[in-house]
């Protein structure tokens, strides 16, 4: 194993272990939803586990996977070493120290504030400092990746970046733009407040800064998944990428549109004028476009693969695809779930209609299809592909790896259908007990909550299979010769001349302009109002 592969693998292992811990937390929630009376089941454990599940899945599993995957792309696609290996390891240890600090605060019951940590709920300072360190680590990662790209550019003047790197650059830019918001929230507002240096904090200002970050955060998760859909999946299917320039267009559109949309998470907030919410609504719908283009290009690539495998009819190419390959089936199933989740997202963003679903179980149904399937299942599939190639060990327990994606798919269907429906029936999200003292309205949710619990158990089984395969591979996988990591070829050769779509500086400038239009005035006007802060509360 080369030192570079060790760097990538270290990130993947932290990611995989965080996933395993988070899945165990979700198991407890599934039992809670089933209303099984177990001796250790309590409200304290439930809300603690929701916090740990959210932080470990949404912030740790994803971030570490993306950091590791970024190094894989930089080293294997650009074919050169990471430009600043010391910096890269510093990034790793900083992010890991932050994660462990925040995890200690959560698991000791001192930070049951959920992964959105809205003040004036107040966690132990270690939670906020840990979160800040995780972000600082990711910034150092971004610098290491950009430095590697610049070094490559010096040797390849005038060439467009290979598509996978193009996508990772978009990921890095979206992340750097987005994290400004959460860094301001955590460092300027929450850390001093949790240490007692400031007495109060303005909850709406904190929510504005959080959601400035919170929505592009989902594209930080999604873009590396898209990199895999565009540059890994077509080859895994036995075909070629349908269109390289359209994929480049998609990544560029995400740079431009990811951030100036955060108010669509605050439709139900007081203190934010409706006009600005409406502007963010319009921009949010713009983001549907690159995802719709992706749906076409990726599906067309799969059809190309099916036809290269001998299909001739209208739809028989679907049957020719390698559904028994865990990389392929994970990614393909994740895309099917994402198609449903994407339209749910359009409903969430629909200004007035949001009132029907805001903070109901619908929302958890929605994001388990997006981040919980499109992203998580794609990343799991990628682990089946990357871990053997990086570690030089063959997959252990291959049968479990083959069935695992299907368990996830079925479990997620049960879970998300149940939660979408109970959400429409008014059931709030994140509640320990859904009985409301035997209320008639609440009694209609039962049955569906049982289906949600069944989904949770299927998902937990799937996560268990994944962990067994990964840990088995890491500890006992048969040694094999190191193998090259292959990337998909486009159907048409890539134009050797860079186009407008390769001018990252220009598109980043446009993104900053749109962010200024969407946020500068509302933030300034907010700060001009007479505002009253809140002291902290820790009711957990």
């Amino acid at each position: 194993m080369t030192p570079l592969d060790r760097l990538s693998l270290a990130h993947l292992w932290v990611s995989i272990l965080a996933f395993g811990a988070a899945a165990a937390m979700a198991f407890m929630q599934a039992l809670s939803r089933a209303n099984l009376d177990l001796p250790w089941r309590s409200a304290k454990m439930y809300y603690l586990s929701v916090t740990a599940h959210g932080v470990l899945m949404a912030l740790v599993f994803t971030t570490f996977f993306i950091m590791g995957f970024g190094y894989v792309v930089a080293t294997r696609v650009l074919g050169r070493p990471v430009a600043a290996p010391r910096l890269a390891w510093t990034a790793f240890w900083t992010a890991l120290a932050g994660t462990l600090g925040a995890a200690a605060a959560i698991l000791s019951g001192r930070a049951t504030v959920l992964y959105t940590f809205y003040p004036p709920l107040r966690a132990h300072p270690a939670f906020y400092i840990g979160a800040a360190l995780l972000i600082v680590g990711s910034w150092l990662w971004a610098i290491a990746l950009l430095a590697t790209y610049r070094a490559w550019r010096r040797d390849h003047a005038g060439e467009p970046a290979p598509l996978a790197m193009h996508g990772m650059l978009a990921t890095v830019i979206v992340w750097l733009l987005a994290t400004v918001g959460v860094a301001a929230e955590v460092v300027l507002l929450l850390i001093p407040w949790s240490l007692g240096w400031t007495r109060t904090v303005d909850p709406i200002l904190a929510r504005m800064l959080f959601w400035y970050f919170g929505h592009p955060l989902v594209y930080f998760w999604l873009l590396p998944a898209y990199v895999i859909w565009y540059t890994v999946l077509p080859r895994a299917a036995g075909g070629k990428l349908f269109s390289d320039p359209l994929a480049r267009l998609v990544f560029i559109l995400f740079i431009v549109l990811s951030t100036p949309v955060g108010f669509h998470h605050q439709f139900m907030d007081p203190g934010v004028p409706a006009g600005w919410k409406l502007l963010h609504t319009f921009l949010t719908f713009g983001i549907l476009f690159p995802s719709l283009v992706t749906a076409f290009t990726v599906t067309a690539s799969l059809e190309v693969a099916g036809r290269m495998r001998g299909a001739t009819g209208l739809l028989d190419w679907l049957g020719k695809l390698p559904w028994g390959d865990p990389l392929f089936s994970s990614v393909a199933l994740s895309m099917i779930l994402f198609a449903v989740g994407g339209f749910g997202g359009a409903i969430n963003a629909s200004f007035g209609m949001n009132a029907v679903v805001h903070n109901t179980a619908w929302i958890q149904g929605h994001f388990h299809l997006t981040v919980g399937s499109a992203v998580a299942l794609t990343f799991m599939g990628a682990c089946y592909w990357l871990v053997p190639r990086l570690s030089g060990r063959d997959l252990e327990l291959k049968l479990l790896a083959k069935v695992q994606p299907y368990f996830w798919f079925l479990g997620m269907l049960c879970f998300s259908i149940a939660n979408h429906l109970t959400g429409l029936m008014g059931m709030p999200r994140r509640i320990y007990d859904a009985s409301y003292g035997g209320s008639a309205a609440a009694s209609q949710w039962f049955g569906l909550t049982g289906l949600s619990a069944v989904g949770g158990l299927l998902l937990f089984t799937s996560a268990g299979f994944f962990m067994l395969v990964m840990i088995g591979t890491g500890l006992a996988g048969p040694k094999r010769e190191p193998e090259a990591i292959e990337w998909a070829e486009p159907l048409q050769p890539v134009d050797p001349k860079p186009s407008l779509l390769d001018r990252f500086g220009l598109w980043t400038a446009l993104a900053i302009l749109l962010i200024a239009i969407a946020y500068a005035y509302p933030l300034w006007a907010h700060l001009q109002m007479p505002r009253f802060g809140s002291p902290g509360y820790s009711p957990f």
Partner: protein
Amino acid sequence: MNVPLYEKLWMWASGVLIVAFLTTVAIGVASSALQPPSHVETIDPAKVWTDPRFTARGVTVDSAGVTVVAVAIMFAFNPAELRVPAHRPIKFRLTSADVTHGFQIVGTNANTMVVPGYVSEFTTSFDRPGEYLIVCNEYCGLSHHVMSGKLIVEEARP
């Protein structure tokens, strides 16, 4: 950029779909039928109980219309039971005396965040008389799931 015909058609169709979605939103806005609660008004959360805007809690009916005034606290709404007439516009005014809460009337689209330091306000009406469950839908502590209230919609007496 050389885009294949089918993909070109798909991209145009995507554009049409997005415009159709946005037109739907715009019609809702233009007709004033659907607006998210976006009232901008601040209040000192430490003085909620003595602030004149929140001392007369409950339902008041006067010439200006029907107004509901309530305060959310860990882990209850004050008052916990509200009686309002059917078929009339009802203005809700809410704030929090501690952490951030939610206020959602199950089976309707009445839904707002209730944030300390701010006054939430929205107007809606109820056409079906009966008893409705009010829930807090924003996590507010270990007893979040018991935080609820009751809305009773009564047919106006002749």
